[in-house]
């Protein structure tokens, strides 16, 4: 990593807000995300963390504030001032989005190989052999057997689907990946495997990740920094282990003390 770019944030969020009529989705959210950083956004349902993720991934238009992203060419752009074509291109090349429900992030009726290859074809790859080779490579990296390449994800287990969704996102070497409860709804053992896989991939690829989760264990295992949200606002933020081991805000203390110990 060059010293020059190392000190510039990849993503800068500036007083971001979203109102649904008179109801507040989220308000006054500001933070910076640097290359290789994993930021966990935690809070209960209704805390505004999902609204925030939708804003960050430009699926929602904010009512206040701005998001600036440092593009691959080094220029810094306000993501809401990008043209629709530029934004969609960004979403399928330099960004990734891992949905909680893999069916939302995959094409369930087409094969695993095509699911992984789609982004390559979308950016103009027209060599079947190369696409297939890349798909096989990525299936291997997410621990899906090579002989499942021509099977549709309909026949996959929940954990496999989620791993396929990750491969589908990472095939274009994105620099920023959004994750919405990526381990939600999975069995504990399946969760552990997925978390371990994610941890490895994130570290190996130097990915920047914004992960929304209500599971503090997931946040602890994956993230460097944490942001606690409540009623649409960020109430506490800092090093993940610091916030979880020495929570300051009453609500954070409640969240941390509400985790079941095994």
């Amino acid at each position, binding site marked *: 990593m060059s010293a020059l770019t190392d000190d510039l944030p990849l993503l800068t969020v500036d007083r971001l807000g979203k109102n649904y009529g008179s109801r507040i989705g989220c308000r006054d959210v500001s933070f910076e995300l640097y290359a290789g950083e994993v930021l966990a956004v935690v809070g209960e349902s209704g805390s505004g963390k999902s609204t925030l993720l939708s804003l960050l991934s430009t699926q929602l238009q904010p009512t206040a504030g701005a998001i600036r992203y440092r593009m691959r060419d080094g220029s810094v752009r306000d993501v809401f001032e990008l043209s629709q074509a530029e934004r969609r291109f960004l979403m399928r090349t330099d960004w990734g989005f891992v949905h909680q429900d893999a069916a939302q992030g995959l094409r369930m009726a087409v094969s695993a190989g095509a699911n992984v290859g789609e*982004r390559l074809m979308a950016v103009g790859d027209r060599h079947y052999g190369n696409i297939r080779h890349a798909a096989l490579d990525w299936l291997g990296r997410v621990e899906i057997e090579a002989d499942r390449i021509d099977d549709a994800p309909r026949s996959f287990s929940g954990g496999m689907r989620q791993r396929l969704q990750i491969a589908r996102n990472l095939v274009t070497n994105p620099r920023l990946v959004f994750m919405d409860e990526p381990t939600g709804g999975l069995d504990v053992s399946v969760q552990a495997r997925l978390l371990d896989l994610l941890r490895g991939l994130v570290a190996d690829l130097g990915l920047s990740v914004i992960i929304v989760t209500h599971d503090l264990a997931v946040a602890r295992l994956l993230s460097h920094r944490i942001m606690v949200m409540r009623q649409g606002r960020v109430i506490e933020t800092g090093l993940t282990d610091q916030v979880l081991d020495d929570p300051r805000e009453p609500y954070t203390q409640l969240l941390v003390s509400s985790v079941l110990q095994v």
Partner: protein
Amino acid sequence: MTTLHPGYNFAYLDEQTKRMIRRAILKAVAIPGYQVPFASREMPMPYGWGTGGVQVTAAILGEGDVLKVIDQGSDDTTNAVSIRKFFEKTAGVETTTETARATVIQTRHRIPETALQEGQTIVYQVPIPEPLRFLEPRETETRTMHGLEEYGLMHVKLYEDIATHGHIATTYAYPVKVNGRYLMDPSPTPKFDNPKMDMSPALQLFGAGREKRIYAIPPYTKVVSLDFEDHPFEVNKFDKPCALCAAEGVYLDEVILDDAGGRMFVCSDTDYCETRRAEGHRGEMLGEAPAFVSREPAE
């Protein structure tokens, strides 16, 4: 020529409707391959029988036109005969089975073997105009994809073909890119006919009645069939020539002759086949084939 039926406006549709359709056609010609919405009318035939094609034909037909109607290459199937009679009755135009003589050719699923010429117009009947439909069910999304020229998804379909069959197994409605811009469904013609669309001197119009879309390929427009670098586009090849007229390099239909496995391959373009036979070309089964195939009394 039959007498014009007095109860109808020329070519069945009222003049305002025809103007509306012509405007859509003009727009379609101006933006090759782009699907133009139009206010499709109820026609006196069921959807799936060519209501889109019939409306386009009705809108462009003039008194001096000579109309040919084919269905899967044949001039005398029920669908082709019905549409031909429809326009004889409502427009009183001359009809023909001869490709070279026709000024307007309405077709279902084939392009004639005789090369089309300048001044001719071919009207395709289209069931589903959206090539991305089976991969992306949301119309809002497919329109955006066309708008932004995001066509990677179409290659996903071709990828699936190769992964499943070892080659691109799509044999009809094979997707094309028109004028280097719009992805287009050429209607369910066999991919054999795709090269005929490229740089054709004729005007090509496409009408989808149920889906209410019109699109077009103006004369001399580049039409490229999608493929992969390592799996290039190929047309269907036939092992044998036509069993009746010995034509090679044409699209053949398989005809089952009996319950004992007897079959033959004959031109799908019946007019082309008959013309060749009249010129003296003789296929290996000519004279043995049943009358329903050769349309000649068996010897």
